């Protein structure tokens, strides 16, 4: 990154980061680089992940490096760093929001693709975790432990519960409406389209339109906004 760019980012750090993170920037400027968070962090214990260094990078204007890094995807979201931080910096929120920025810039799709079906279930059924179980190990053990077929409907029935938890049709329609108007449905479609597409087009953060333009708006991808 050129000196000029670095300076620009530094000057604009807060507006830019705020935009990226929907206001969840968690007061990074208060960080005193003590490293307590790293000492407590389970991700740092097993990888090169280092929250203190990431904060340092962000504050020094190297947002691009953070967005591109694989480490961004190592955080477990356990909040131990927040619990240990003397300055009450809630770093996992920043990580969560930076991951969106990373996705918008064309990185990280490999980390989210397996989650897409959960979002599809949420859209179709109003619930993210559904009954069907793919893991044969789980079914076999549940079968042995419950004295049923091991299928959830049967287990619930044996317990005297309705076979299924239901979500009302009205609720489903409302959730789908919210998903459609807020851009979530589009985002899902876009991710599905991209899921197997490789190689990704990686763009410099400054050039990603959504990052610059979406503050205060319900987001969509740039081309979709144009078409709208």
């Amino acid at each position, binding site marked *: 990154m050129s000196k000029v760019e670095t300076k620009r980012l530094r000057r604009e750090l807060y507006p830019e980061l705020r935009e990226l993170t929907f206001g969840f920037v968690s007061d990074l400027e208060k960080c005193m680089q003590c490293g307590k968070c790293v000492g407590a962090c389970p991700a740092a214990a097993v990888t090169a992940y280092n929250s203190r260094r990431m904060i340092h990078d962000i504050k020094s204007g190297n947002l691009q490096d953070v967005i591109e890094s694989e480490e961004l995807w190592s955080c477990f979201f356990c909040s131990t760093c*927040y619990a240990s931080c003397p300055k009450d910096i809630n770093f996992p929120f920043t990580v969560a929001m930076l991951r969106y920025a990373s996705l918008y810039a064309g990185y990280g799709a490999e*980390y989210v693709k397996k989650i897409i079906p959960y979002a599809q279930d949420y859209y179709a059924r109003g619930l993210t975790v559904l009954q069907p179980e793919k893991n044969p190990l789980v079914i076999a053990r549940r079968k042995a432990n419950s004295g049923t077929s091991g299928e959830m409907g049967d287990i619930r029935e044996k317990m005297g519960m309705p076979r299924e938890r239901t979500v009302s049709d009205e609720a489903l329609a409302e959730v789908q409406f919210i998903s459609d108007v807020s851009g979530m449905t589009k985002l899902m479609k876009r991710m599905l389209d991209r899921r197997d597409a490789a190689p990704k087009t990686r763009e410099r953060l400054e050039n990603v339109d959504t990052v610059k333009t979406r503050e205060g708006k319900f987001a969509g991808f740039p081309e979709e906004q144009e078409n709208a």
Partner: protein
Amino acid sequence: MPRPEVMARIPVDDEYFLFRSCVASNKYPGMESSTKEVFERIGVGLRESDDQTCCAGFITFTSVAEVTATMPAVARNLSIPDQAGLNTVTMCNGCYTFLTEFGHFLQHNPPIMGKVNEMLSMVGREYTGESQVLHMIDVLPKLQDRIAEQIVRPLKGIRFATHYGCHYLYGFKKDAIDDPFTPTVVEDLIEVAGGTPVDYPEARTCCGSGLTQVVIHKEDLSLPHMKAKFDSLKEADVDAIVVVCPYCLTILDRGQAKMVDRGIAQHEVPVLYITQLLGLAMGMDPVKLGLGANVTSAKKFLDKLERLDRSRATAQAARGGVPRSPQSPASSPSGETTGDGGEAANA
């Protein structure tokens, strides 16, 4: 030690809105059945609604649904207890985090709250933020005396470890019911149920999963955490682990099977949700408690309980007293009997 100032803020209501959890409903239904039965026995109402959907936290924090989409979804869910005039009890650290954080965010960002309500008004709803969002372990300590009255099968001599999970105590280090690093609320409840809380060195260690072990993280990152935790549990010689979150339940329950399957470790410690523990001590039928939905077998643990019941019965008989057995129905405030016994437990 529960914090007095937080305890003072927790409302004790006649009825709460029970915020159902996807994982509880579809993977560990015993969490739901035991919660309902425990509350019924202590005479506190729980209202549910089929209009409530998933909190959408999972898909948000795994980056597939943007906050701009899930914030209105949070507001929509909370508009249900808002309208009913009830405070909300969540069974899950994740639901709690998501509803609380986004609720606060909306209330402190009026322009965004306005936009969200604009969207909700199109489906005839409004979010006011009046319903207080509470965690199960905010509410249970406040009802401790009523719980104690209903304990008919004290879990004497049974050793319980706790796993509080990260997203409640760590994430809400200032507003949670207890200190993030040295909590005792669950231990207190274990004692109320007659059990023995056991400390172990890795008690506050994360299970290694966060939200995403199954999907984002490679097993070789997360299983070592889990192994360290279970090795330390083994040394402490515990009969069961008590959790306050369905996600912790899932990871700890299934993780053991995974470690066995991968030949990493041989642990078999049943994992119970807090209301399952209380339900057991109130004499609830283990079938209804839903321990069969667990992947890690609870058989050894339940056998131990049965031996305990038998020795208690023998001792009672020797004294010539009439045992206050789990079968004796607990009475509900309306005077009807709600006990459906511990037949299976004693069979």
